[in-house]
């Protein structure tokens, strides 16, 4: 390498960072530290508060959901029950009507078809007993 360049390099290598730079750095770091410490506590507090708030909100939401969820179910059950009862009543009324009709018809049938022959046979039996051969 050229002699002039060597001298330049040697000269540049002699350059030293002044001590005041490090002093300034230390001063700025110590000035920033309490603030950052305060901010750290503020941040921690804010995060904790946020977490607690979230937990409370979720808890409240769960309670509300539990309160709300059975209400439609109960209403639906109530509706179903009354509907079932109504249908059952209708069905029973229909069955009753059919039974009544059936009984009316049976009565007619018995009185018209079964009773006269039975009466006749009784009469025949009676006359046979009264007037033996």
């Amino acid at each position, binding site marked *: 390498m050229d002699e002039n360049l060597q001298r330049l390099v040697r000269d540049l290598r002699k350059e030293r960072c002044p001590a005041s730079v490090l002093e300034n*750095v230390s001063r700025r770091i110590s000035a920033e530290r309490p603030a950052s410490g305060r901010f750290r506590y503020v941040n921690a507090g804010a995060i904790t508060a946020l977490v607690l708030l979230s937990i409370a909100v979720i808890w409240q939401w769960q309670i509300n959901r539990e309160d709300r969820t059975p209400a439609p179910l109960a209403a639906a059950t109530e509706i179903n029950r009354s509907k079932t009862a109504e249908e059952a009543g209708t069905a029973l009324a229909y069955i009753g009507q059919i039974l009544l009709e059936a009984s009316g018809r049976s009565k007619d049938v018995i009185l018209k078809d079964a009773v006269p022959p039975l009466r006749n046979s009784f009469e025949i039996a009676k006359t046979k007993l009264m007037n033996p051969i």
Partner: protein
Amino acid sequence: MIRELEFKVLCHRHRDQIYRFALVLLANRADAEDATQEVLLRLWNHLPRIIPFNIRAWLLRTTRHYCLDQIRRRSNRSAPIFMDTDILADQPDDLAVDPSLAADSSLRLARARKILFELPENLRSVFVLYEVNGLRYREIAATLGIPINSVKVYLWRAREKLSNLIGKEETWTKTCSD
């Protein structure tokens, strides 16, 4: 506590290299001091996240980014770039004995510095990192984010340009004094 200790050790180990690099990039002592201060503060803030492997490259890269940013700001403000040419005023010259020779030598060095400051930034960076800070090609490549071959080429060009310009300057001075 460990962080402070580590920071102090790193500061003492690297501050001169940061300062020299900033001085060559910014061509001004006060600005170089500010740059060193800023880089060391960034080191303090990033210390828990910096991987200890090749911390010197990180520091010098940060220095370069900061200095380039400062140069850009200066050019945006269109302020004249102040070259600190009496940088050797407080530096005694070991090579000279005679006061007149010492003054002459200081003047030559000041001129050489001025020529160095006028080189393109990439050549200056490579020259300073290799010759003054003693980094290897690989470290320079990592610091500047360029291939190793480019580092070699830039170094060669920087040496060539500096030799030529300093030589021309000397010839011109001799001619004038004759």
